[in-house]
């Protein structure tokens, strides 16, 4: 059994005392003796108690925390008040991530997170272990996983140190180039950044929005009312702040992004201040997603993300860690995606033309609603006068409908379902048949009027909670039923093929001398 790195007590205490210290600060303010005023001494005393409690707790946590890597499980014994023994079968490990923030990097330690498919959160977090120990754990968990995945019956293989072997067969798949990082930073909109931008602006203005608006200069300008310009100016500042922060965040997040392949695992590392690295076993990949968002598509760039079942839906921090390639040449992305899952050409079958009519009607209704709202505003408030000008938006309807229609499509490959959707953010999902969990054929009341339906191939991946499952939108009803049956047939077929392959391999291993590369390294390590 191994303990955590001693320095983790200090680091954990620091973050813990920031929390508990703040809590006791609030408690001190609220429950301060002496009625009206806050007694400074008692508040400071309570904060000190909070910090001391935090340190004691963390010391106890450190003393109680033990982990061990056995042949087929990873065992963790932990807990100060409520104690817990946890055993993780190595074959069920989905991802192993290593995270380091600036402070932790200076101390030479790292946090290790191990994900499995079950549960709502990270199954095991080791905070913190030595950097080398973290790397060693990742390597050994991987080795455990790979042997376990290919041969579940074999036992008694001791934990091997395949340091030299794994360093040798590491192939670099992708390294972000400076201009790619620059484009990515400039054009990425981080939702969190807009909030931060707002906060930064309100600090900069000293919580007085008027301070940032040069009212005296606006007065001289010709045009309608100065109030509108002031609002526009404020919005401009806000957008600018959000954009700058977003660019900075994206830059630090993807700085030095590198994706390598070691044996049958992908390994990524990224980050300027916070250092992230992790493994994605190829065996556990559920879905590949190629994303071509609008500014990037114009420049011929695309992104690739890899989904496993490891991260629970809605789990914070999982965003980005599944991203295999944040941004690269579209051709290169396709090539890399094929290196992971060898799917055929993206030669999609478009939805029927009546789907396009459906979108046109939908957008026309949206325009009608906008015009209606404008009319009501004009009628009752006088804020807008020429409400009917908005009807010109109807010109955009056919264009929008056509673009939506053109960017949708589906293809049933021999081994994969490919489904594409979205104009602004075009995503192409690649789902291997043997990963499909259920097939849904859905037709809303409006789709049924036009004999259309949507077919969804549901997988266990974590990113499909927000309507992002591989869906063939608005296909012909009968064609949809055909697809549903075909996906199911091929799922069964692929499963049988894989089953056959596995039993074959096992028989091969038991019967004849191990000759494949993986087994060779194993026997080397066992000496």
């Amino acid at each position, binding site marked *: 059994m191994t303990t955590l790195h001693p320095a983790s007590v200090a680091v954990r205490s620091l973050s813990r005392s920031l929390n508990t210290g703040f809590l006791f600060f609030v408690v001190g303010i609220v429950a301060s003796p002496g009625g009206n005023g806050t007694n400074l001494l008692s508040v400071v005393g309570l904060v000190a108690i909070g910090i001391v409690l935090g340190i004691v707790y963390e010391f106890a946590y450190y003393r109680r925390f033990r982990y061990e890597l056995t042949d087929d499980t990873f065992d963790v014994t932990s807990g100060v008040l409520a104690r817990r023994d946890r055993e993780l079968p190595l*074959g*069920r490990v989905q991802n192993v991530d290593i995270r380091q923030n600036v402070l932790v990097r200076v101390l030479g330690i790292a946090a290790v997170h191990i994900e499995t*498919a079950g549960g709502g959160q990270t199954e095991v977090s080791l905070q913190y272990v030595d950097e080398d120990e973290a790397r060693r754990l990742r390597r050994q968990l991987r080795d455990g996983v790979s042997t376990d995945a290919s041969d579940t019956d074999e036992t008694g293989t001791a934990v091997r140190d395949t340091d030299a072997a794994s360093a040798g067969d590491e192939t670099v798949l992708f390294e972000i180039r400076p201009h790619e990082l620059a484009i990515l930073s400039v054009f990425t909109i981080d939702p969190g950044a807009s909030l931060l931008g707002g906060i930064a602006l309100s600090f900069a203005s000293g919580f007085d929005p008027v301070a940032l608006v040069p009212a005296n200069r606006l007065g001289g300008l010709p045009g309608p009312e100065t109030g509108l310009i002031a609002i526009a100016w404020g919005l401009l500042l806000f957008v600018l702040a959000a954009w700058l922060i977003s660019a900075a965040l994206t830059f630090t997040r993807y700085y030095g992004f590198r994706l390598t392949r070691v044996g049958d695992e992908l390994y990524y590392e990224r980050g300027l201040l916070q250092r992230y690295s992790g493994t994605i076993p190829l065996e*556990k990949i*559920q879905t590949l997603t190629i994303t071509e968002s609008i500014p990037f598509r114009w420049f011929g760039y695309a992104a690739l993300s890899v989904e496993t*079942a490891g991260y629970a*839906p809605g789990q914070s921090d999982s965003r980005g860690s599944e991203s295999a390639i944040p941004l690269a040449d579209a051709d290169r992305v396709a090539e890399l995606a094929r290196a992971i899952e060898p799917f055929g050409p993206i030669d999609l079958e478009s939805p029927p033309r009546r789907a396009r009519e459906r979108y046109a009607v939908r957008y026309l209704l949206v325009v009608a609603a906008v015009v209606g709202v404008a009319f009501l505003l004009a009628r009752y408030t006088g804020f807008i006068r020429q409400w009917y000008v908005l009807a010109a938006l109807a010109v955009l309807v056919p264009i929008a409908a056509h673009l939506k229609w053109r960017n949708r499509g589906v293809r049933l490959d021999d081994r994969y379902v490919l489904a594409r959707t979205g104009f602004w953010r075009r995503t192409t999902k690649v789902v291997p048949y043997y990963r*499909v*969990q*259920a*097939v*849904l*054929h*859905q*037709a*809303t*009341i409006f789709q*049924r009027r036009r004999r259309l339906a949507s077919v*969804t191939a*549901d*997988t*266990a*991946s*974590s990113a*499909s*909670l927000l309507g992002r*499952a591989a869906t063939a939108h608005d296909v012909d009803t009968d064609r949809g*039923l055909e697809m*549903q049956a075909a996906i*199911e047939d091929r*799922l*069964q077929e692929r*499963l049988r093929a*894989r*089953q056959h392959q*596995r039993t074959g391999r096992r028989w091969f291993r038991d019967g004849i001398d191990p000759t494949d590369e993986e087994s060779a390294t194993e026997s080397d390590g066992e000496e």
Partner: protein
Amino acid sequence: MERLTPRVRVVWLLLALVRAAIFGGAIVGAAFGLTRTAVWESAPDVLVPAAVALAVALALLRILVAWRRYGVWRFELRDDDLYIERGVFTRVKTVVPYVRVQHVDSRRSPLERTTGLATVVVYTAGSRSSDVAIPGLTPTRAEDLQESLRQLAIETAGEDAV
């Protein structure tokens, strides 16, 4: 194709009525509050009748949907998969291969117990609401179904179900 027990309509109708009563009570109450208090001085007189009409119309719609739902619901245990057809507005046809079944629950709410019905829930590892519930079964049929689904899931059990 197997249909549900016709009695399930009683459960659905009762649920529809309860929901309609809660929602209708809320909007009619709000309309009443608005006209009687000084919140909205010039509230039109038609507000309360309009709210009542809306509540009644929604209740009727709910009842109609609950009734129609029975006509649409179908399921079948096929060779390799469980097939389900449901949905009044959005017609959903779901295929759940037995290989993917993680576990099968049978459950009975108080309302179901009084009407002598049961629901079987089939769980998969999928993330998109593909946990399938088959309502309106007699307790014996629910038990049978659960048992046969379990058997089928074991027979076809492949590798790691994820």
